[in-house]
Each structure stands twice: as structure tokens, then as C-alpha cells.
């Protein structure tokens, strides 16, 4: 039987940490470890989660866990896997938890190498759309228009002017065994895909839309709601890549309001009507492609 919110284990493998209230990254690790179990080796590069989880002598992981060098999450995962194989170990999972910067920027080369080696690892990117641990700076996955501490919203710099790198399709371009996008706003979909990743015979990649109330300027009890709304307004999508094919898992008939989604977050509060139009145009272009190519 598939794991769902009702039958998932009560056993916690990531708790007692010092993450902010409403942190979707910590929720991602918590849920993932419930799916993957105690014989997981968690690889968590320098980011918020390793910062709050490994402060000697206060360790918070109930499974084996290691902080790899920032650029080397997937390489350390590969090394762990090779080591376990060489020693004939059985029944274990090597799972990485890197943020958006740790994945799409500094960690991309190592991630690409691990998939190229076809190593059976599960790499989870919790995407909170900026370098949060260092104080909210722009990453390669920061969306167009976002105000961060190094992309201020002023006259000369109007927030981050590039759009999100397309990590999911970059992973698919490696012909990875399994890749999926999820959001903490849709936990059932997320748990289902985590389980698929766990059982995939080769490398798997899960891209989690993971709101950060501290960095986004929203109340800490709105994480799930924002995570759901991002999907509903079309600025995030739930999809899979498997057996060389894309699948769209949720195809909304009508999108909810982009403006409502953006305006409740202080990181977007400076956006004017023209910005919102531009974001809407980008969304529609993206969905045209998605619907054309991923819906069978």
C-alpha cells in the first residue's frame, strides 16, 4: 500500500533542530525520512538544514547523516554508495537534501556527474528560491522580480531579473531514471513521488517547492497554503520524468490569481502591474509548452 498522510509512520528521524517556524525544508526532510526509513544515509550540504541539525554535541538526525562540502553533495553520495557496495551492505538509501543554490548553482557539476554514473541515489532539492542560510541572496532558482538582500527592489535594480533555471528538465536531459517536481502544499503527491524515487532502480531527483516564511515575508503558519497556491496559480507545476517520458500530474483548468499569490509575500510587494503582466506572460508560455509536450 502506498504511503499517505494517514498511514505514514509516527517515527521521527529529524527532530529537535533549530529551524524557523513554518520551514518547508525541515518538513521535506522529515517527510522524506518517514518514507525512506532508518537505514538512510542523509547527505546535507552547508545550508539551513545542516546548520540547524548538526551543532555539536546536539545531533538531530535519527539516521546516519553527513555534511558534505557545499559543491559536492552528489559526489559524497556517490562515494557512500560505492563504499556500501564494496562492503556488500544491503537495504540502505543514500539521500541528499540540498537547497536551490546548493543544487542549481554550486552543486550542479557534482549532481550531473552522479547521474552520469547512474548511481542509485535520491537527490532532493528543497527549493526556497534563494540562499536563505546566508540571509536571503539570489540563487539560480530565484524567480523573476524577487527582492532579495543582493537584488534590492530599487530604481536601478528591480529585484532579481533572471528567471528560474529549469532544474527538472536539466535532470530529464540527463535521461535520469526518475525525476519529479512536488510541492509541500500537495503532500499526498509528494509522498507518492518520494516512494517512487526510493524504489527507482537508478538515480532519482525530486524538486520540492519549499516556502521559507522568513525569507519570503509570510506568516509561518501559511507554508502549506503558499505551497499549494504556487501550484494553483501556475507558477509551479507537478510533473514527473520516467522511462524517458514527461507526465503532468496536475493540469488546472483555470489558474488562481498570480497577483494574490505574489502580493501576500513581502519579497514581491514592490512588483507593479507591468511586472505581474510579465510574470503572467512567462507562465502562459511555459504552460503552453507543458500542455503541448507533457500531456498525452
Amino acid at each position, binding site marked *: 500500500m502506498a504511503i499517505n498522510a494517514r498511514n505514514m509512520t509516527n517515527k521521527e528521524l529529524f527532530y529537535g533542530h533549530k529551524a524557523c517556524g513554518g520551514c518547508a525544508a525541515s518538513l521535506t526532510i522529515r517527510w522524506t525520512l518517514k518514507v525512506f526509513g*532508518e*537505514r538512510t*544515509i542523509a*547527505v546535507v550540504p552547508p545550508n539551513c538544514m*545542516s*546548520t540547524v*541539525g*548538526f*551543532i*555539536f*554535541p546536539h*545531533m*538531530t*538526525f*535519527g*539516521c*546516519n*547523516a*553527513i*555534511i*558534505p*562540502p557545499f*559543491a*559536492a553533495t*552528489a*559526489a*559524497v*553520495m*556517490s*562515494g*557512500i*554508495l*560505492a*563504499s*556500501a*557496495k*564494496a*562492503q556488500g*551492505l544491503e*537495504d*540502505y538509501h543514500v539521500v541528499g537534501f540540498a537547497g536551490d543554490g546548493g543544487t542549481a548553482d554550486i552543486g550542479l*557539476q*557534482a549532481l*550531473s*556527474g552522479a547521474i*552520469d*554514473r547512474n548511481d542509485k541515489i535520491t537527490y532532493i532539492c528543497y527549493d526556497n528560491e534563494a540562499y536563505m542560510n546566508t540571509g536571503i541572496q539570489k540563487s539560480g532558482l530565484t524567480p523573476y522580480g524577487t527582492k532579495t538582500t543582493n537584488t534590492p527592489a530599487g530604481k536601478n535594480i528591480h529585484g532579481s531579473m533572471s528567471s528560474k533555471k529549469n532544474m527538472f528538465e536539466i535532470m530529464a536531459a540527463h535521461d535520469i531514471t526518475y525525476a519529479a517536481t512536488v510541492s509541500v502544499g500537495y503532500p499526498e503527491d509528494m509522498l507518492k513521488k518520494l516512494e517512487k524515487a526510493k524504489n527507482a532502480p537508478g538515480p532519482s531527483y525530486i524538486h520540492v517547492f519549499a516556502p521559507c516564511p522568513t525569507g519570503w515575508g509570510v506568516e509561518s503558519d501559511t507554508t502549506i497554503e503558499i505551497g499549494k497556491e504556487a501550484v494553483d496559480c501556475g507558477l509551479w507545476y507537478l510533473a514527473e520524468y520516467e522511462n524517458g517520458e514527461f507526465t503532468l500530474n496536475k493540469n488546472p483548468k483555470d489558474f488562481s490569481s498570480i497577483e494574490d499569490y505574489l502580493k501576500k509575500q513581502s519579497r514581491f510587494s514592490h512588483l507593479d502591474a507591468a511586472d505581474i503582466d510579465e510574470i503572467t506572460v512567462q507562465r502562459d508560455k511555459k504552460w503552453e509548452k507543458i500542455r503541448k509536450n507533457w500531456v498525452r
Partner: protein
Amino acid sequence: MNNKIFASGDEALALGVRLAKPQVIAAYPITPQTITVERLADYVEDGSLKTEYMYVESEHSAMAACIGASAMGARTFTATSSQGLLYMCECLHYASGSRFPIVMMNANRSTATPWNIYGDQRDSLSQLDTGWIQLYVENGQEALDTVIQAYRIAENPEVMTPVMVNLDGFVLTHTYELVDLPEQASVDKYIPYKDYPNKMDLDNPMSTCITAGPAWNTEFRYQQHCAIMNSAEAINEADKEFEALFGRSYGGMVENYLCDDANAIIVTLGSVAGTTRIVVDDLRAKGYKVGLLKLRCIRPFPKDELKKILGNSKVVGVLEKDISFGYEGAVFTEVNSALSTLDKMPKTYNFIAGLGGRNISKNDIKEAFEKIIAYGNNNENASNLEFVKLGCEEYGN
């Protein structure tokens, strides 16, 4: 049974690695290390080495993969050189800080820029503070033997520190000689697989490569320092035990070649020690009381050995393929620091030679001896740093 093989330095080292049986090898090619990783792949292909041979996409990932593999309890090996060593620099600190007994070969090569693929020791000598034990070898046989010794040192429970085995690019890596191959059974006895106390165990989970704030950091660092200090004994022990099993010894941390009654001694490391030994013999035949001190390791630094061996000499020359810009050769600084604690310190002189692969000839070394003998007798305050065979105009010091 004939156990002699005609091999280049790279190949000799690979033969040593095969005997050491690492369970994981992370390989990324760089000149002049490439032959080592090629041979190791051949051994995997012909079935003579059972290992997880990882095709990594960079040196940074090579060391990171070794960190992961070692953290999970496997014996590991990687090899690099020059820019590759520098690219993995962050991971060097990482590996030593969490006490992973990784063994790495470094083919000593010049660092860019200007680009140059030939041998000098600026790559490894710039990494002295990474917390790695650094060993240097003189020839192919010593490379083969030392990489085996390296595992015994690294995995010593009192040490648990990574070891870098350095051999000079091209001069050693690409030079062929007859090497003697130790028996596998004896090597297995010499370096049995060990259960690392700091490994991640599926049945007994732990967190590793953790964060330690101001309240704990000094204590972690102190223990790391103690481990490398302890490795001095482990290096000597590994060499003695190696001699007992295989009949070859290299003197442990240093080799004292005719230094006991010498009044002029050259300190050096790597392949040029071999050339220096011949020059010492030539000069001895002419009645000069000269000697050679070969450094086999520079971390830990053999301070006590140097004080004992060099203490009675009138003058000491340090010949090194390195310059720490703005000061002097890095080895010279180390030697001076050790000797400065003597009641009467010998006069010291620094020869910067062999940069970017420039040949160091017997004649260069003979002239170096002549120079330090004259310098020892001269009480004037002359400069004591020289770029050997400098081809441009010298600036004032």
C-alpha cells in the same frame, strides 16, 4: 620467484595501490598522474584488483567521493597533481578534519600561471596546513613501498589522518626502473582492513562532518594536531615493520646519509635526493665532509631528527623546488624554525631550483655544496637565498 617488474614511477605506485587493495578508487585524470589511474583501471579490467572504480567529474568530486566512501568505512585511494590538488583544497581540510584515513598520490607538478606540466613541489608545499600527512619519495621502488606504508600510517588508530604520497612529476612518474613487488599475503598482514571507529554504521547511526562552535572547536583542532604529532611514531613504526617483512627501509621520517661527521649538509626531498646522494659520494671521495638529509615527510615535521642530525654541522643548505613568494622556500622556513631552537644554530642557505621542471644536475648540486662550504667559512652577512641558474638579471634583496 621473480618479483621484479620494469615500471615507471606512476606504474610502480599503481602496483603498490593494487597490493593495498583499496575498496573504492575515485579517479580523475591529470598529467603527469594519468598512468597511475590508467593502470588501476587495467587491474580492474584484468580482475587483479577488486574495487569500486569511480569515474568522477572533477578532483573536487574525487576527494569528496573518497570522503563519502571513507565515512562509510571503506579503504579509499585517489590520485592527483598540481591544479587538481589545488581544486580539491577545500576537501583536503574536510577529509583531515573528520579524520578519514584516505591515501592519495600527488604527482608533484608546477602550478599555473604560467602554465607548466613539469615537476616542482609548489603544489603540495602550498598545502601544508590542510591537516594531511605529507610523504615524499625518491624513486619508483620507494613510491611503491611508501603507498603501502601510507595505509598503515593513515589507519593507525592513534593517527586516523589522510596521507598524501608525493612523487616528482616526470622525473619520477615517467621514469622507468626495476621494482621489486612485495608478496600479497605479507602486504595483507601488514595492512589488514580495519573497522574505522568514525565510520557511519547502518545499525548504529551517527552524524559526521558536524559543526563545532567556539565552545568546542579548539578541542577538535587540538586532537587533530595530536593525531599528526602521533603520526611521527607511526611513520617510523611503519617503516621498521616494513623492513622486517620486506627487507627494505627508508629511515622513517628522514634519511641520514653520511651526516654524522659532516660539516656541510644539504637537506632536500623527493627525486633530487638521489642525485644529491651521488654528489655526496663524489665529494666524499675528494675528502669533503658533506652529507645529505632526505626529508621523507614534511607533515609531521621531523624537528627532533633535524636538530639531532644537523646540529653539529657548520652549515646547512636547503635545496627545494618551491618558493613562497615574498619570503623564501617553504622547506627552508621549516628547517630554520626547527634549528632555531638549538643552542648553536648552523648557518643556513636556501637554493630554489627545479621550478617548472628545470633540470637539477649533479654539477648544480656540487656547486651548491661548494657555495655553502664557502658561506659557512664566511662571516660576512651575505644573502642566503639563491635561485639556481637564474637566467635574468638579479634584483637587490
